């Protein structure tokens, strides 16, 4: 929510701190400030405020933010519209208002005759424009002002384009044209403000006004609506029509019903001031048990509880001072303190809510950091223990662990609201994902410096009635899986896992023998005994990740004879010394000795971060290596 510093200042006589200081104070004590934007053209500064959800019922307004600033800084809030709770308008029975829905528990309609529609005064235009709002005309701007000022949505209708108001559920398929050119087809879950005689929808309740009774330059008489619409219904309507507005956001966050009374007063007073006219009165319809003045219940907390939950000793005068600055009725006795929250603070209900207020205004910097007492570990988690065993065993066998998506294009368990059509189901096996991953990794064997791709995953799989943890192990070469070359690798892996866990188990191979085996970890673990302790964990250095190139790598093998006195390390050093950074790996392939000579073979792997290399570039570098070899008196093979 955007907040103007000039607007905030209107609630105070004493000058407020600089905007950067304000932002800092609010971040520490209230909620985050995303951004501080200077608006020299309006001589203003705008704060982007991220009000927390539990405080959004009362804080989504300049006045709400101002109360926090007052509590933090101690600067008195001298101009508080909520300080006066009387409606201060004359009741009238000449306005026709009826409510035929439970979606609204307070509906107030006031009428002003003899207004002159025109531009707003400069001060109002500047405030709205600096927040990125549009300035439309004086009466519409007045409603926007009241909303952003105190958080109460209001709406103006042209009184001559309608008879009276009937609030009702929309009809299935009923259409409404809203301000700004929108057209919506409604359902019976939506609520509309309809004309009391013609039944034409005039506004989508709690969300947006309609064009049927839109105010124009010719308007002379207006109705002002200030109401309290149901939070959940408003949220659902706004969601259903993808029409989230400043008004709907206030309702869905639960502004209190009484605020509608203050909203109508503020709106009428402002319109009379900037557009003239006479208020002929108001009519208010409320649901049963909707009090005209909310009487909040008092909340108590013992000092003992406060201090033991925070883990610090808050001096009593600090507690008293916090609630005094908040201007809440505060009393204390030897053991506890009691406050009566103001009517709009629906979030202060249990002692913990008061503890939060003390913690944030006292400042968490007063809370020391203290370690809990160490206690011995009561038990070892068998599943996690065995999972670690399997991981370590497979890693020792050259397998790397991957995580793959829990979603598949087609499988057993469908998701109701999938992200994409290829993510519509939960996986029932891991092996399909592992097969895909093997294929994707196969071209990278040289780059990775491995003879073949070996990988495994330990992850949850899903059937209709159950989920369990599965393990899949896979292997493939550059050109895929070859049973002759790779089957023994898989078998050795299974044997190693068996012996590490001290049990045997069956692993599933897919129908086509294609290099992936899978077994149920959950089933396996059930058969195993509990273990005494975890293996000791030794911290490792923090590795820095290096982004990989999206371009393919190319390999060249070089082999050559050297005297037996030349070690493979020496040979590799020479190769490295003549290559540039396009060579990303030099892998030792093999060596063999014949009489007084030894033959070495190395694989050079080349890759660029910004392009696909050409044969010419790669061949030139291989040739450089051969030159260096000849230079040493060694013999290329």
């Amino acid at each position, binding site marked *: 929510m955007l907040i103007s510093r000039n607007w905030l200042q209107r609630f105070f006589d004493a000058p407020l701190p600089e905007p950067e200081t304000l932002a800092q104070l609010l971040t520490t004590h209230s909620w985050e400030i995303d951004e501080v934007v200077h608006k020299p053209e309006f001589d203003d500064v705008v704060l982007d405020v991220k009000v927390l959800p539990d405080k959004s019922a009362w804080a989504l307004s300049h006045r709400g933010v101002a109360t926090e600033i007052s509590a933090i800084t101690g600067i008195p809030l001298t101009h508080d519209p909520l300080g006066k709770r009387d409606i201060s308008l004359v009741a009238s029975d000449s306005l026709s208002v009826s409510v035929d829905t439970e979606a609204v528990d307070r509906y107030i309609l006031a009428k002003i005759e003899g207004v002159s529609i025109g531009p707003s005064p400069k001060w109002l235009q500047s405030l709205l424009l600096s927040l990125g709002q549009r300035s439309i005309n004086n009466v519409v701007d007045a409603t926007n002002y009241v909303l952003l000022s105190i958080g109460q949505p209001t709406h103006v209708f042209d009184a001559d384009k309608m008879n009276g108001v009937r609030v009702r559920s929309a009809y299935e398929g009923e259409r409404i044209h809203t301000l700004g050119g929108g057209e919506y087809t409604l359902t019976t879950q939506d609520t509309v403000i309809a004309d009391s005689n013609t039944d034409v929808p005039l506004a989508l309740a709690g969300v947006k006004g309609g064009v049927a009774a839109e105010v124009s330059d010719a308007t002379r008489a207006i109705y002002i609506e200030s109401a309290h619409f149901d939070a959940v219904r408003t949220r659902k309507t706004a969601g259903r029509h993808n029409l989230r507005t400043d008004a709907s956001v206030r309702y869905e966050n639960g502004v209190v019903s009484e605020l509608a009374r203050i909203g109508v007063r503020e709106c009428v007073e402002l319109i009379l001031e900037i557009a003239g006219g006479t208020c002929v009165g108001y009519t208010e319809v409320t649901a049963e048990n909707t009090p005209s003045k909310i009487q909040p219940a008092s909340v108590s907390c013992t000092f003992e509880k406060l201090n033991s939950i925070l*883990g610090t000793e808050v001096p009593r005068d600090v507690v008293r001072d916090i609630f005094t600055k908040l201007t809440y009725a505060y009393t204390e006795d030897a053991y506890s303190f009691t406050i009566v929250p103001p009517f709009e603070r629906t979030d202060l209900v*249990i002692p913990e809510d008061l*503890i939060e207020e003390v913690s944030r205004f006292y400042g968490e910097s007063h809370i020391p950091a203290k370690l809990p007492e160490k206690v011995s570990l009561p038990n070892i988690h068998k599943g996690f223990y065995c999972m670690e065993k399997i991981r370590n065993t497979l890693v020792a066998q050259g397998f*790397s662990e991957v995580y793959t998506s829990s979603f598949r294009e087609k499988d057993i368990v469908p*998701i109701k609201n999938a992200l994409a059509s290829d993510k519509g189901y939960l996986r029932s096996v891991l092996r399909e994902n592992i097969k895909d991953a093997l294929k994707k990794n196969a071209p990278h064997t040289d780059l*990775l410096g491995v003879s073949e791709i070996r990988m495994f995953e330990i992850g949850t799989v899903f059937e209709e009635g159950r989920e369990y943890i599965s393990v899949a192990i896979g292997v493939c070469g550059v050109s895929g899986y070859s049973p002759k070359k790779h089957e023994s690798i898989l078998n050795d892996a299974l044997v190693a896992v068996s012996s590490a866990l001290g049990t045997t188990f069956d692993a599933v191979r897919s129908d086509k023998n294609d290099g992936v085996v899978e077994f149920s970890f959950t089933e396996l673990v059930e058969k195993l005994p509990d273990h005494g302790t975890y293996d000791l964990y030794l911290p490792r250095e923090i590795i820095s990740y290096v982004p990989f190139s999206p371009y393919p790598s190319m390999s060249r093998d070089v082999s050559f004879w050297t005297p037996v006195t030349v070690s493979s390390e020496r040979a590799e050093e020479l190769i490295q010394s003549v290559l540039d950074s396009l060579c990303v790996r030099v*892998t*030792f392939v093999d060596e063999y000795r014949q009489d007084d000579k030894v033959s070495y073979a190395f694989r050079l792997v080349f890759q660029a971060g910004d392009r696909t290399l050409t044969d010419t570039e790669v061949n030139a570098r291989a040739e450089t290596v051969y030159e260096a070899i000849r230079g040493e008196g060694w013999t290329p093979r």
Partner: protein
Amino acid sequence: MKKETQGHIHPISQTITEINALFAEFGFTFADGPEREYIKYNFDMLNVPKDHPSRDMQDTFYLKNIPDMVMRTQTSAVQARYMESHTPPIRIIVPGKVFRNEATDATHEAQFYQVEGLMVDTATSVAELKGLLRYFVERLFHGKAEVRFRPSFFPFVEPGFEVDMKLTGESVPEKLRDRWIEILGAGMVHPNVLRAANIDPEIYRGFAFGVGIDRIVMLRHGVDDIRHFYSGDLRVVNQF
């Protein structure tokens, strides 16, 4: 260099192992729960109101044929399960996969890992939460740390905090040194959550915290894209 004969453990698994070991020193037991979870544990018992926006279809994955279950949106679901079946004192650490129905980009995934910590006892406090979290980030990032608690909100805690850390020390990755970084959410367990699990909030209290493991790994090792963790690409995993 020689051909690689050793494989590599996924960086998230490595981090889970490390986190488990760190908290084991303070007697926190490893606990887990299903990834497809009952709404009761994922929302109801965690004091999330019936009509709360986080339950909406745009945030939570629902199953077509199983109306009372969701893909868990938080490892906190295990809190509720564990408290229901155990009596305090409780100290658990819960790493696991969670799901959010949101579009993916370099910093967002629809599936990612969280670790939840929970301690319930007759006397614990925000001060102990702060001490434990400072210890945690110091060990995890190999340096000295300050932690700072800012007001925040999660339905299952009161008060709730956003926790920032400021690291110092030579072994700390340079990019992370000497600045405030938002690292996790935490708070004192809401009495309604204790009550829902049949634990008397007049006798017991607790704290809980939740950390995104992917984010920890990204910060600690400078990984630039969260999607790398789920791509099955060994060009990523084999660096760890």
